[in-house]
């Protein structure tokens, strides 16, 4: 994985010093709160319901045991001993004191981490496939490009005060595991007929009040031109994106109002007129960055398949975990393991300091120290030998991290909602907890299923993309929940449609249960929920839901 060189180290140190001085000036009254706010936001510090919340970047979700231990230490020393992994491959700490933040950032810098631009109207953390580098269906490792983008988008002099936040996602596999189409800019790594690497560039995706999926604005941008082309996209957006209305300020609204074709033409004209050489990305530079991501030296002694099968046959719970939580690795002796942060009845995405330490230990012993954070709010050990899986599973089980539910109905994506977030219009965590408890027994029968919950229209819980999405809203002082059906992330991304009037909080679990029953009754073999929904439409679901409500 990428290691900071002297430049990167000096940069984060300078950033910490700058921020320390900003906090000093704020505390001395030289900066008003209005002036300080965007500065702290550019370092990931929000003012929330109860305290400051610090959002720490895990660039493209890739980190390691030393970083994880540092995070555990920070949650113990400056917070309440746990953190929350978010849908942006970040970690949020909810109980932070302003005075402590410069020290926390200094601690992060010591392990090559930061909280730069995890908030504010600029580039956010670039996200990618949590299986990057090891997925069996990958064209090329996307992490070097994500790292190049991380650096390029950090304190960009021209684009640090955009109309609104700006999120970029990269995917380099047949299967899109990064929800690329819901991003302001999405990049699909492609190879042209000459075998050269480039990117299909998508623009104009985003959730929130107006959920829109992105459009292809250029089918192939050579990698040499990646940065200059993105600068052109950003320059068009910076000049013409709306700034009069926060809900219309994302690039998706600009793309929608101009039309994707016209927008693409504007970008193309800007790009052709720009100095493309100045920001050209030379092959040898990409190679140099990519060398940091070389795969580790695997032990390739063949796995004892008989023993492996025996363990699985003798332990149905292990077999189930294998089925749900492991994914095909480039090396046939290895597996990619997802550690569920969705134990039934707990807060989705939360992880205690002790669990963080354990995952760090396991990563050191079994996964070359590497860890990933997935946008589904789970953790990943990317290189585990298959003959170590049984032992790994037992240790995870013992620590409450062995839940075998990846991609299942209890693997709920859920934002913090009103329990923490000051923007929330309703609670989301208790809804997720209750649903998971209720659905756990049926989980196997249901199969692949995504429920996604947001506590307000900002849609941090991606509810629009859930097979079933749940949005908490406030109706005359009461928390009620709008249900959307048929959403999908990934290659077949789709925005769900609202089924009808919102449900009261105590009717949500029962209502979803009814919808699931309709699905189980009417699905044809192998059909996932969105497929069934597209085939039969909303009517049967609507009739069942509102007949009982």
């Amino acid at each position, binding site marked *: 994985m990428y290691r900071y060189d002297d430049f990167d180290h000096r940069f984060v140190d300078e950033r910490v010093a700058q921020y320390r001085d900003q906090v000093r000036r704020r505390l001395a009254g030289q900066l008003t709160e209005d002036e300080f706010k965007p500065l702290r936001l550019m370092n990931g510090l929000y003012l929330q319901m109860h305290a400051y919340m610090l959002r720490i970047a895990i660039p493209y979700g890739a980190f390691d045991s030393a970083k994880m231990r540092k995070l555990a230490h920070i949650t113990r020393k400056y917070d309440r001993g746990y953190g929350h992994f978010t849908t942006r491959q970040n970690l949020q700490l909810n109980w932070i004191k302003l005075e402590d933040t410069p020290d926390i950032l200094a601690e992060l810098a010591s392990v090559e981490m930061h909280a730069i631009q995890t908030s504010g109207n600029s580039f956010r953390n670039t996200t990618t496939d949590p299986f990057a580098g090891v997925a069996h269906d990958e064209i090329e490792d996307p992490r070097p490009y994500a790292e190049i983008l991380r650096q390029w988008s950090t304190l960009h002099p021209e684009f640090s*005060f955009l109309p609104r936040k700006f999120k970029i996602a990269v995917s380099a596999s047949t299967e899109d595991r990064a929800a690329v189409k819901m991003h302001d800019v999405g990049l699909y790594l492609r190879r042209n007929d000459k075998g050269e690497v480039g990117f299909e560039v998508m623009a104009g995706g985003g959730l929130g009040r107006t959920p829109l999926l992105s459009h292809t604005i250029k089918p192939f941008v050579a990698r040499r031109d990646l940065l200059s082309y993105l600068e052109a996209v950003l320059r068009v957006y*910076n000049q013409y994106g709306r700034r009069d209305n926060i809900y219309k300020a994302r690039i998706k609204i600009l793309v929608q109002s101009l039309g994707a074709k016209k927008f693409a033409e504007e970008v193309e004209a800007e790009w052709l007129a*720009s100095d493309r050489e*100045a920001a050209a990305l030379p092959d040898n530079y990409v190679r*140099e960055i990519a060398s940091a991501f070389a795969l580790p030296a695997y032990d390739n002694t063949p796995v004892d398949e008989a023993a492996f099968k025996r363990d699985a046959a003798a332990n149905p719970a292990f077999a189930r975990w294998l089925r749900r939580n492991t994914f095909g690795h480039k090396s046939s002796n290895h597996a990619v393991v997802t550690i569920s942060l969705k134990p039934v009845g707990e807060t989705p995405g939360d992880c205690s300091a002790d669990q963080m330490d354990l995952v760090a230990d396991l990563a050191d012993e079994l996964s070359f120290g590497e860890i990933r954070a997935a946008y589904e709010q789970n953790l990943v050990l990317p290189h585990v030998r298959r003959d170590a899986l049984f032992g790994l599973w037992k240790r995870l089980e013992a620590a409450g991290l062995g839940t075998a539910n990846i991609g299942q109905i209890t693997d709920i994506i859920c934002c913090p909602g009103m329990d923490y977030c000051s923007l929330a219009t309703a609670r989301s965590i208790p809804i997720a907890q209750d649903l998971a408890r209720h659905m756990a027994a049926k989980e196997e029968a249901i199969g692949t299923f995504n429920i996604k919950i947001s506590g307000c229209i900002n849609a941090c819980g991606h509810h629009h993309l859930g097979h079933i999405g749940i949005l908490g809203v406030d109706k005359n002082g009461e928390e009620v929940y709008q249900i959307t059906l048929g959403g999908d992330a990934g290659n077949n991304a789709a925005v769900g449609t609202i089924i009808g009037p919102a449900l009261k909080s105590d009717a949500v679990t029962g209502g979803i249960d009814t919808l699931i029953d309709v699905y189980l009754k009417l699905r044809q073999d192998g059909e996932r929920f969105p497929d069934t929904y597209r085939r039969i439409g909303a009517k049967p679901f609507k009739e069942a839901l509102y007949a009982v409500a």
Partner: protein
Amino acid sequence: MLLLEDGTLREDGWHHVADDEAIPASGDITVSFTRWKEVGATLNGRSGKLGLRLDNTTAPADVAPDLSHFQLIVLNFPKFTDGRAYSQARLLRTRHGYKGELRAGGNVLRDQLLFMRRCGFNSFIVGERAVKEDWAKAFGEFDVFYQTAQDGRPWVMRQRLNAAP
């Protein structure tokens, strides 16, 4: 109003003529783009330097043919969070080859100065709260940059490539 130019604070010697104000016969003045379009040609004979004030919705390309008339261009930040003028500045400097003084006006704060300078601004209307040392320090907070920009400072990709064996 104080003006900071490459680390020094001084008074602004320019007279910024309002659109409904008569144009003085001498002295250094700036006019809005609207005024320039109305009376541009008549300003050529007067003594004193000429500057242009652009609002942040005017495309630099629209001004490009006239740039040779101006020794100063003032770009506006109505709020410091409104970053359109950063792009205007870069376009004026690169695409349109403007070499004169490029000034940031409006809500110009210390913590944005470095960004502005990197985009090609070389003077700043900074308001009365400016403390000289503090503002000057704003330029020196970083010496590592991840992007190529207008101030000609070395940037990391180039530095790495140059350092490579």
